[in-house]
């Protein structure tokens, strides 16, 4: 029986091979035949002008304006390298990755690609992006936050460069804390930050019939591992082995299970919604929020009486906070990586990073940029910056990151809706190891 099936399969295949032509050459073919349509293929026109195309997710109005202004300026100053940026509309980071994945199958990537920090390893390991070391020498990298360089490095080489960083802190509604008789947590001394037990305890006290104690769910995708991952690190867990090749014994360790069960206390007891509306805190429907640096500008505009403190620390005092942001990389499909590199050197200089970071109110990745940015010496922004320099830890670096991220968020959501934590995390480990084994084992 098996033999018959195999024979049939092989026969069917023969027919298909004939029908499909040479598929292994899909990449080459696309490059050759798709002039005018493929992004990279347009790169050099007859008059010696090099074209560089950039993809990045559609952003806030201020950032969109920054792009227009900066690209205009560059194109005027550099008639030989003309840059064009395409905004990719997406509902979440996963959708954007799907777009890149699709383009990769056929060699249709742009010259410069913005990717989310932890995906840097994935793209690097698969040869989609090329090293940037020659454009950003070690000297220059000293100016960047250590967490930025760490996240953008794979296998000892720099594969991407991020203009901004991110951090997550605890925002609180002062009125609600007053009502519950809870003193404001500190924003200047991490020793007085809320610990795990205090956070849970206060969330309980703050939960009323009109609002919940806290909001810990950023979104149901990448936001889970990004924002909640730090609790795992604080518990002493690690997602994968140091070389990024193994998850069993790491993501499903006792410490991981402990962190997952701790987080579930919030959901299980109704101190936090599993499906919060996106501006729950702003609307006064949550008393506290594990929010990002990008929330600051929006909160400042509102009438809410809010304050900010550190990302909750472990009961033993261990403090960790999330980091990482979108970074620019140069792709294998780029015909003129040097032109793209030149542009990146310019776009990522201290001044441009300062204006970019100011536009989006995110912490800059370059230390020197802060001199040119206002408002980062005190309050929420200063706290974010402090966390980045002192407690920031980047997400795991492994070529199988997309499997880890997807399965981890699925597992956490399952745990939140009643599954056994150990079982779910075992599953993540199993899927991760399988994926690594299949595609990256040397």
């Amino acid at each position: 029986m098996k033999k018959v099936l195999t024979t049939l399969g092989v026969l069917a295949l023969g027919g298909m091979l004939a029908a499909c032509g040479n598929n292994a050459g899909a990449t080459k073919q696309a490059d050759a035949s798709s002039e005018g349509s493929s992004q990279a293929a347009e790169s050099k026109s007859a008059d010696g002008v090099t074209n560089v195309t950039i993809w990045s997710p559609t952003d806030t109005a201020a950032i969109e304006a920054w792009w227009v202004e900066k690209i205009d300026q560059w194109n005027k100053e550099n008639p030989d390298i003309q840059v064009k940026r395409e905004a990719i509309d997406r509902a979440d980071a996963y959708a954007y990755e799907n777009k890149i994945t699709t383009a990769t199958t056929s060699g249709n990537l742009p010259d410069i690609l913005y990717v989310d920090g932890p995906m840097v390893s994935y793209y690097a390991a698969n040869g989609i992006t090329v090293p940037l070391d020659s454009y950003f020498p070690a000297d220059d990298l000293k100016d960047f936050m250590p967490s930025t360089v760490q996240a953008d490095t794979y296998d000892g080489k720099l594969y991407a460069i991020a203009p901004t960083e991110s951090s997550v802190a605890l925002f609180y509604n002062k009125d609600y804390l007053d009502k519950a008789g809870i003193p404001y947590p500190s924003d200047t001394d991490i020793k007085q930050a809320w610990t795990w037990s205090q956070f849970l305890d206060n969330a309980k006290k703050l939960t009323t019939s009109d609002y919940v104690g806290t909001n810990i769910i950023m979104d149901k995708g990448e936001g889970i591992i990004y924002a909640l991952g730090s609790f795992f690190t604080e518990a002493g867990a690690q997602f994968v082995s140091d070389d990024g090749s193994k998850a069993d014994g790491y993501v499903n360790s006792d410490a991981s299970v402990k962190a997952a069960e701790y987080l579930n206390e919030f959901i299980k007891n109704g101190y936090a919604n599993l499906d919060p509306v996106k501006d729950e805190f702003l609307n006064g429907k949550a008393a506290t929020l594990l929010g990002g640096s990008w929330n600051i500008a929006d909160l400042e505009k509102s009438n809410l009486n809010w304050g900010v403190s550190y990302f909750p620390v472990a009961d033993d005092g261990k403090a960790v906070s999330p980091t990482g942001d979108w970074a620019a990389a140069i792709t294998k499909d780029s015909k003129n990586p040097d032109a793209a590199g030149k542009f990146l050197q310019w776009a990522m200089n201290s001044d441009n990073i300062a204006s970019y970071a100011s536009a989006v109110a995110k912490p800059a990745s370059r230390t020197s940029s802060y001199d040119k940015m206002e408002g980062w010496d005190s309050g929420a922004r200063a706290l974010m910056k402090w966390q980045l320099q002192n407690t920031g830890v980047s997400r795991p670096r492994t070529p199988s990151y997309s499997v880890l991220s997807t399965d981890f968020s699925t597992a956490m959501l399952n745990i939140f809706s009643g599954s056994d934590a150990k079982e779910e995390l075992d599953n993540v480990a199993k899927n991760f190891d399988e994926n690594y084994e299949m595609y990256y084992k040397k």
Partner: protein
Amino acid sequence: MEAKLSKKSKREYGDNLAGFIMSSPALILLIAFLIIPIIYTVYYSFFTYQVVRPDNIKFNALNNYAKLFKDANFYVALKNTIYFTVIVVPVQCILALVLALMVSSKKKGVAVFRTLYYSPQITSMVIIAVLWTILYNSNANTGLINAFLKSIGLQPIDFLNNPKTAMNSIIFMSAWQGAGYQMMIFIAGLNAIPTEQYEAASVDGADWFAKLIYVTLPGLINTIKYVLMITLIQAMKLFTQPYIMTKGGPRNATKTLVFYIYEQGFQKGNFGYACSIATVFFIIVVTLSIVVKRISKTN
């Protein structure tokens, strides 16, 4: 006799040529942009293919299929797809029939009501899914439906986060969104039932319910078959709702076959494996649609 014969064969020749001319542009497009991608899919299903490595694909014969038939998630997805289909088809069709009965008369203003019932149908599923994710919010302070339940003294329901309710919530929303279309078809079917039949039934003393059972439903039998067939075909394709609302969760409760194909192919990069799921899925739906077509024809 002879003249008749030659005329007939001439007509057939004319039909043959005209048939080719009229169908070939459409057929060429179908082959080029549907059949060929399907052939690609079947072809890649015999390979180990990490989606971002088109330069490194390895023939693995039937490995993907061997893995597939041992994959618990595949059976979960299959079960969910069947569950969704089996429930949503009757629910949506009955809802549509009730609505059609409500607006089948020629009274003034009936067009307005038809528009009301049809309006979810013309709003995109992407929009509807985003909207209902907010409506379904589990907290009575931020979810409209739970706020309503609370105000009439009921406990809030964790619609989309409870594995027991998630799929049913999607079914309810889908039936609401889609019923308008089937309603229109039913209206058309109802209008086609001769009024004499109702008059005759009235003479026999039949009440409203008897008329429904003995006149309306038998008169609608072909319409019902047609509606069942198209609803079934639509239901098997369920993707957008879990993609936007639940990402297949919680605990795989809303993971459908098409969603699983997407998840494996895009999200996890197992393109070859995704193709093998897709191939099995094709076989299922094609068989099903042909069987359904046969059944609706023979009866």
